[in-house]
């Protein structure tokens, strides 16, 4: 049993499951809202809005679990990105993904008890979880409570709308890459299994 590490405690797994599900719902309804027409539409605009709002609220509360979970538990340390030499490490990892991987080269940053994510993973998780999602939530809230934000002088719906859409695309792209990279593991499905049972299988 030495080649397994218990990486994903139950709170990470449940957070992640809800997060992933809500994210898919948000992307789907978000697209539907942006491309609404009177004749054809995936789902009716009003339904899409209601579902999008609810999913967004669930994701927001769920995000608090992630935020405080990582502050209060040890899981947060995996997200610490050391700037010094960071670029080199990213390039190294990038080379592996674009070349090495096809030649069966060894992993430049093998996963171990102290390193849950490789540098690229770490950076993208860091950016999307601590920048992308919070911005998404804030801009979403301004669109949801325009009157409240109006009251305190923050009336710039134009800007929040722009950021909301922009980030929607960024995070969608992140998710595609994220899910795809999760197939690069011990076996194609082993990472997905770890997200279900909590145990990460080492190579």
């Amino acid at each position, binding site marked *: 049993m030495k080649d397994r590490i218990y990486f994903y405690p139950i709170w990470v797994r449940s957070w992640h499951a809800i997060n992933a599900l809500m994210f898919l719902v948000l992307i789907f309804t978000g697209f539907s809202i942006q491309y*609404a027409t009177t004749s054809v539409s995936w789902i009716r605009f009003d339904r899409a809005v209601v579902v999008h709002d609810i999913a967004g609220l669930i994701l927001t509360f769920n995000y608090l679990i992630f935020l405080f979970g990582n502050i209060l538990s040890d899981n947060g340390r995996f997200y610490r990105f050391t700037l010094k030499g960071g670029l080199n490490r990213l390039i190294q990892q990038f080379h592996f993904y674009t070349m090495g991987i096809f030649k069966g080269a060894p992993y430049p940053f093998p996963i171990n008890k102290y390193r849950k994510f490789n540098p690229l993973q770490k950076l993208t998780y860091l950016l999307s979880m601590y920048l992308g999602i919070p*911005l998404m939530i*804030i801009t979403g809230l301004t669109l949801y409570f325009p009157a409240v934000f109006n009251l305190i002088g923050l009336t710039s719906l134009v800007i929040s709308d722009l*950021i909301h859409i922009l980030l929607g*695309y960024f995070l969608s792209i992140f998710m*595609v890459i994220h899910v795809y990279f999760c197939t690069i593991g011990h076996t194609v499905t082993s990472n997905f299994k770890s997200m279900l049972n909590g145990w990460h299988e080492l190579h």
Partner: protein
Amino acid sequence: MKKKRVILLLALLLLLPFILYTPVSVRAQEGQAARKDSTGKDKHKERVYTNKTENNVCLKCHSKTHIEYMAEGATKVYKQKMFSECIIDTNLFYNANHWNFKCTDCHSDEYSTFPHKGELRFEEKPGCLDCHAGDPQYAQFNFEKIDEEFKKSIHFQRQGGSFSCWACHDGHYYKINARNRQENILAAIEYDNNICLSCHANIQKYQLITNKVNPNILQKHEWLPNQPNHFKHVRCIECHAQVNDSLMVAHNIQPKSKAVKKCAECHSGNSRLMASLYKYQLENQGKYSLPESGFTNEPVIIGGKRNGLLKLLGNIALLLTIVVVVIHSTLRIVSKKN
């Protein structure tokens, strides 16, 4: 270590909105914008009033909450409460479209005697078209077309002559609005909606026209999400009047069964608001220039044309990502290494 991180995080989260948004002093400009016309000049300064003294004959009673009257040969001053409906707000009156009118331009000369003659109350008021029809000065408003559309509207169809243009255009205070206030569209919307609500939220005025029970407007529109916000950003006529390309303000109010209920009529690339609410702005400022108050005051119609290029680029980026993923996975399968 940990404490520091917590504080840093929370501080960042709290700061974000303030970094992102610049408070806009739109409200401060609102009052000013309201008084200026489309050229930005203060129209009122150039106004020369020629009928004020004559009107004071009427207004000495009709602008007060009570009247004092000395009948010929009487020894005692007669005092009476003035009905609130008969009190004219002189400030609004002298700022309305018909700012330089004599009371007796629209009302009989005989009102100058008091007590007013009983039969006067049955006098016909002049209609808008009596003065405005065929006048090239007002061609831009297209009164004839408005009249035509109004005759088709549900109000006229159901109530006929008892529902005239004056029902919506207050005889004393009506002021063109959408045209003059493009810098402050929210105030224009409020003004226009108050026209409708003056009856539809006021049982007394409503039942001047019909004995029917006044339906509760808020209840009837509960299906609109965040209804107060919608009523602040769109006019009743957006949903209730048939758009007419030759008119700035559609006047053909449709029966409720034909009202707009589909969200995508507005929330879509070809929003009907472009042909109604935003028509004036689009015609006068061109599609791509920004309103004077800055783009921060622009309405955001979710699902509208906004950010079209951004969305296109986003879609392309998303597709490219998927293409790269497909290529990468094919290479992985072919190389059989991982």
